[in-house]
């Protein structure tokens, strides 16, 4: 493989991996902040338990997002130096602002939240979490502004062959970003919803399985007690409330992704028509949305693709909002792209060995076609499952079926899959451009960059391969560690995040402060136990 291919694989692997952790951080952060607010307002012990339990899982995951995020910022300069030189004037600013205005807020206030359970007043402590979570939302905004500029470059002029920012307002209110930000945030909430739903289902199922909760003649749950610390009556409330919150969040966020996704589709139809055509694997102009296409979807000659099931009009609706507008297929777009941007890469040293190669304007269609459908399919399946879950738990607990429990637990993965598929679709669908040309900008010096020109000329394929192998190995190892820890803490239940429950006799009121240590010994700071 040559340097460009390796650098692309590395960017893809590290980014998709990073974006496993990030949506859970954003989504779960918002949910935990809401739960802690409920605790603050009502004082109910189950909300404190939920805050601590979900907060613990949030932190186990948060750190992985932090650790893998540094790679993202460094790798533009390391592996994509020509890209960095070309776009730096406009692309660097949102990255710098993300660090200055979002990462500082996120990390500092989260540190205060983790360690400040006792040092801070309750309202200040809660505010710290909210500020940290809002910081993570801002960070999503800034990075999507940067990404949207690659999808739809605005607010610049070409000076000496490089885009120079002339209108910051246009860059920071890019319409591509304004719809992508809510789409991404709803996607993050979908992940959190599925996470709560699956884990809470498991615990409710386990309580039934272990004979703690029973079901009365009317089908309603009778929550029970057990002598195991933390598995008391309040524990049932923790899980049923978590499950219902998770299900509602999952459904709302699917509606949100659908509405914003629809807006995105219409923008994409104007801004990147080839991506839209490739999402359909459609050769010819038409109006129908393919439910299933067979043949070699990825073949260079897209006439090999046959749509077996096609719903007329839907594609036009996705693109334009009516049922009749013809959406251009790959074949007619291809000629247009060749006329506008050339048939071969120019003989410029920036392209290295790739100069003069023929340009493939059609993205890899297996990826775009299936990526688009996996995104919608996984997202929709998770929302449907959430609806079923709400109905199935209307009497206060889950069915005793082990199969359904497994389905709920593995269902946690579906929104992750939808997020990954959506990003892979939108990034692969932009190829062969790293900065897609904006059809609204006129003139010869249209702002665009081929991915073939973006890689670092001074970095060898050997170096890139080394980092690809090292980072993939490290990430794989850490994924195993993270999942093992999550499973351990999930199985542990609330006590894993609240060791004080073990010491409190079952009939004590959880609302009281936990005991401060044995007499004669200095009070051990159980706040530190929560952290390190």
């Amino acid at each position, binding site marked *: 493989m040559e340097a460009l291919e390796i650098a692309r694989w590395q960017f893809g692997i590290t980014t998709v991996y990073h974006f496993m952790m990030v949506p859970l951080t954003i989504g779960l952060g918002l949910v935990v902040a809401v739960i802690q607010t409920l605790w603050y307002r009502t004082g109910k012990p189950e909300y404190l338990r939920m805050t601590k339990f979900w907060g613990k899982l949030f*932190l*186990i995951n948060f*750190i992985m997002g*932090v*650790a893998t995020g540094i*790679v993202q*910022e*460094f790798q533009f*300069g*390391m592996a994509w*130096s020509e890209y*960095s030189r070309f776009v*730096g004037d*406009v692309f660097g*600013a949102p*990255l710098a*602002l993300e*660090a*200055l205005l979002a*990462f*500082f*807020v996120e*990390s*500092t206030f989260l*540190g*205060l939240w983790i*360690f*400040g359970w006792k*040092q*801070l007043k309750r309202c200040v402590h809660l505010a710290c979490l909210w500020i940290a979570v809002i910081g993570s939302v801002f960070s999503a905004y800034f990075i999507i502004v940067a990404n949207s500029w690659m999808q739809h470059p605005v607010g610049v002029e070409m*000076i000496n062959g490089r885009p*120079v*920012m002339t209108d*910051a307002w246009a860059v920071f209110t890019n319409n591509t970003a304004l719809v992508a930000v809510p789409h991404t945030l709803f996607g993050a909430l979908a992940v959190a919803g599925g996470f709560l739903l699956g884990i809470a289902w498991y615990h409710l199922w*386990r309580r039934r399985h272990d004979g703690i909760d029973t079901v009365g003649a009317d089908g309603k749950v009778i929550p029970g007690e*057990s002598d195991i610390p933390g598995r008391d009556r309040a524990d049932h409330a923790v899980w049923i409330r978590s499950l219902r919150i998770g299900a509602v969040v999952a459904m709302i966020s699917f509606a949100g992704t659908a509405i914003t996704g629809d807006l995105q589709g219409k923008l994409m139809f104007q801004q990147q028509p080839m991506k839209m055509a490739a999402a359909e694997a459609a050769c010819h102009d038409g109006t129908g949305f393919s439910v299933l296409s067979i043949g070699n979807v990825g073949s260079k000659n897209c006439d090999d693709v046959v749509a077996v099931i096609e719903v007329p009009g839907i594609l036009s609706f996705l693109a334009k909002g009516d049922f009749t507008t013809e959406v251009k297929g790959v074949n007619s777009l291809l000629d247009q792209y060749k006329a506008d941007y050339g048939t071969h890469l120019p003989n410029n040293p920036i392209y290295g060995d790739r100069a003069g190669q023929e340009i493939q304007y059609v993205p890899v269609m297996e990826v775009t076609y299936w990526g688009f459908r996996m995104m919608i399919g996984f997202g929709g399946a998770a929302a449907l499952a959430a609806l079923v879950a709400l109905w199935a738990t209307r009497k206060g607990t889950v069915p005793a079926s082990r199969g359904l429990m497994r389905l709920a637990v593995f269902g946690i993965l579906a929104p992750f899959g939808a997020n990954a598929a959506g990003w892979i679709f939108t990034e692969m669908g932009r190829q062969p451009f790293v900065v897609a040309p904006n059809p609204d900008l006129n003139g010869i010096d249209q702002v665009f960059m081929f991915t073939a020109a973006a890689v*670092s*000329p*001074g*970095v060898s394929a*050997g170096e890139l391969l*080394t*980092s690809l192998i090292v*980072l993939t190995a490290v990430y794989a190892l*850490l994924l195993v*560690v993270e999942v093992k820890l999550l499973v351990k*803490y999930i199985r*542990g*239940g609330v*006590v*894993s995040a609240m*060791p004080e429950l*073990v010491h409190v006799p079952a009939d004590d009121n959880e609302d009281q402060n936990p005991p401060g240590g044995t007499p004669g010994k*200095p009070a051990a*700071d*159980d706040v*530190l*136990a929560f*952290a*390190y």
Partner: protein
Amino acid sequence: MELLPTIWFIAIALLWTGYLFLEGFDLGVGMLMKTFARNNTERRVLLNTIGPVWDGNEVWLLTAGGATFAAFPLWYASLFSALYLPLLLVLVALIFRAVAFEYRGKVDTPQWRARWDWAIALGSLLAAFGVGAALALTTTGLPLNANGDREGGPFAWFTGYAVLGGLAVVGFSLLHGLAFLALKTDGEVRHRARQWFVRLLPVLLLPIAGWAIVMQVQAGKAWTMAAVVAAVVAAVLAWNFARRGAEGRAFVALGTFLVLGSASIFGAAFPVVLPSTLNPAFNLTVTNASSSDYTLGLMTVVACVGLPLVLAYQAWTYWVFRRRVSATHIPEAHSFLPAIAAKALAPKD
């Protein structure tokens, strides 16, 4: 000299100084996990001094990197691509270190903790060394061609200066970590940290002093040489304060040493941001590597609002967690019996 690029050169120098000042001590404390701390309780004392703040400190690195990208894209592109392998090492070190802080206490076995202790210690050491090497090389030069790309293969950056810079940041961070521990802990750890500080100061500051002197020989100006002298005075003061038990003053004096030393190094380098060792005509300077005035102006406005805010709330964090940590604050490691495992382990009746 153009105004805005100059302001941003100073801003980036400040961001790096802020990074070395703040993350300096948590890198140092990390390195001390294996050599200084004697048992698990002491390690937890060390961790809890930096626990609430290390992540916020690390953002200074991200901000320095991001600001370099935004303000001097050509500097960012050339430096980061030329130092591909050493920066990969820094990344891997920072990843393991960050994860180790969070995961170390999550499983209650000595083997688990020992593994993550090594990750913290080695991660801190290698990250400090790599960052130091990169900073030294951006002041002493890299073999860059006319396009700003590295010539001479993946290891062309490896010179004595890289080693000197690496040792400089490792040495300073260790000392700064000791000063921080003396300030933030109580009992045996506090006492020992002060002792080590006094004993090791001359050795640990030697490489960073060497780097500052190299820069003066290379491109010193009158004021940067004066800054070196002042830095040496600050180091002597820090040593003297620590010997007398004035831990707060020793910490401030060492911080002053860093600010002066960093000013002398960046000041001497100015206006070159990354020299080419192949041809001075290929040097990247504040003028030829910078972004447009429009971008720099925008960033200036945002930084003028954002940076004071960051300083204010980070200072507040240190105030909230101002209490000294000592071994008596450390609770027993809690090994919980997972509710579900407990059921499974219970004798069947």
